[in-house]
């Protein structure tokens, strides 16, 4: 698109989607994705089928629409990682980019979602929404890390929401808006000058449900806390740190 005579032809951004489903015994009956959402089967220890997001191009750019659906079928154990951080970059005029994730864990299934951080580059605008749907006896480890700006750079605008349903009802709904245009985001109520923010959600009926031991809330240093959710065998760790490395170190201490 270099023609000067096409003022109305604003590229709408690309659409990409990926799907993965794991069955029992380490099988992957569904594994499809391309472009920025290219997926590869990789080696993993233990019972897991492991899939790595290899991100064949830098994305998301403004205007892009990305969608990833992952399912652990009954009795399946699925682990999803990524080869590198995802960098949200400014677009060519297509407005905000969207990245939607749908994660489903069926009866007796387990999902470990452990990607590298999302980096919000200066001038970018990205909206993400992770929708997680869990059977009553499903297990989940879900990590989300966001870094506002590359080294020495201001971050872009980032709005991320996580909605979790467990046994048919919503048990967590949280949205965080940061960067230019998000009122008060860097004040003492929201990020207070921190540039890396992360969440680790652990759902484990055997550990926290009936017959297990309910988790106790506890601070983890001054900028993180372990928070048992209401009405679900689940704990959420919310953490802030100066940078991605410090954030990962913090979350690693509580990742089962």
């Amino acid at each position, binding site marked *: 698109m270099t023609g000067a005579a096409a003022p109305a032809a604003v590229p709408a951004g690309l659409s990409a989607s990926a799907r993965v489903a794991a069955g029992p015994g380490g099988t992957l009956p569904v594994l499809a994705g391309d472009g920025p959402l290219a997926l590869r089967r990789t080696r993993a220890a233990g019972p897991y089928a492991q899939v790595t997001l290899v991100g064949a191009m830098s994305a998301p750019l403004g205007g892009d629409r990305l969608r990833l659906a992952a399912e652990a079928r009954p009795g399946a154990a699925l682990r999803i990682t990524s080869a590198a951080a995802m960098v949200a970059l400014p677009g060519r005029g297509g407005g905000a980019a969207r990245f939607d994730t749908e994660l489903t864990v069926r009866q007796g299934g387990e999902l470990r979602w452990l990607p590298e951080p999302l980096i919000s580059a200066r001038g970018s605008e990205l909206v993400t929404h992770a929708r997680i749907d869990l059977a009553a006896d499903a297990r989940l480890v879900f990590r989300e890390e966001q870094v506002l700006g590359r080294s020495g750079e201001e971050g872009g605008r980032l709005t991320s929401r996580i909605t979790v349903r467990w046994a048919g009802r919503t048990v967590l709904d949280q949205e965080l808006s940061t960067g230019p245009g998000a009122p008060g985001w860097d004040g*003492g*109520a*929201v990020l*207070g000058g921190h540039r890396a923010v992360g969440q680790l959600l652990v759902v484990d009926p055997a550990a926290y449900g009936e017959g297990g031991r309910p988790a106790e809330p506890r601070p983890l240093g*001054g900028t993180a806390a372990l928070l048992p959710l*209401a009405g679900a065998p689940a704990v959420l760790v919310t953490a802030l740190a100066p940078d991605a490395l410090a954030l990962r170190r913090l979350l690693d201490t509580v990742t089962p």
Partner: protein
Amino acid sequence: MQQPSCPPPPSRPAAAAALLVLADGRFPAGGHAHSGGAEAAVRAGRITGPDSLEDFCRGRLHTAGLVAAALAAAACAGLDPVELDAAADVRTPSPALRATARRLGRQLMRAARAVWPAPELAALAAARPRGAHQPVVLGAAARAAGLTPHDAALAAGYETVSGPATAVVRLLGLDPFRATAVLARLGGELDEVAGRAVAAAGRAATGGTGELPAASAPLLEITAEAHAAWPTRLFAS
């Protein structure tokens, strides 16, 4: 701002003055004992004067304030308060903040039932004897007082910033004129938040509580847990 799918309020007296009663800091509902996270922020050096107080209040208004305003507007419009209470739980991952919201809700319920007796308030008190989340009770009280969802949203949003501003006067010895000026400067944004809250409550009337905003403030959630364990503190939260 009528929601066609919701029952009309039980009575509609000319009620504008009731908003002043409900939003008055001296309304006997226990709010004065809470700093809205400001005490922890002062201790951590995140609030040191009027500017950082304003940043703190702005962040709180657009996160916890927006959620509280939407819950209050929805309760005032007649959505099921027990469902709204559950929606408040899933938007409040911190157990310390959930406990605070329920304690404040219980205290507000006592006052509201004495001031504006209504069967709907009694029913909510019976359904949540240990207290419903405070913004839900606030909305139900506004409904009993004949106020509108927009009134309820304004009162809930205002409370999320007036609490910290008042507390910081005591915590830092901040000039009360300057603290009040912070509240005045946030007035336009409070109006905007109330408008968004009412719109979201309207969507929730047909689309369910998933339509309500879920804006979160990590430092409020994180510091609430540590603050609740302080051996001595000036404010309960």
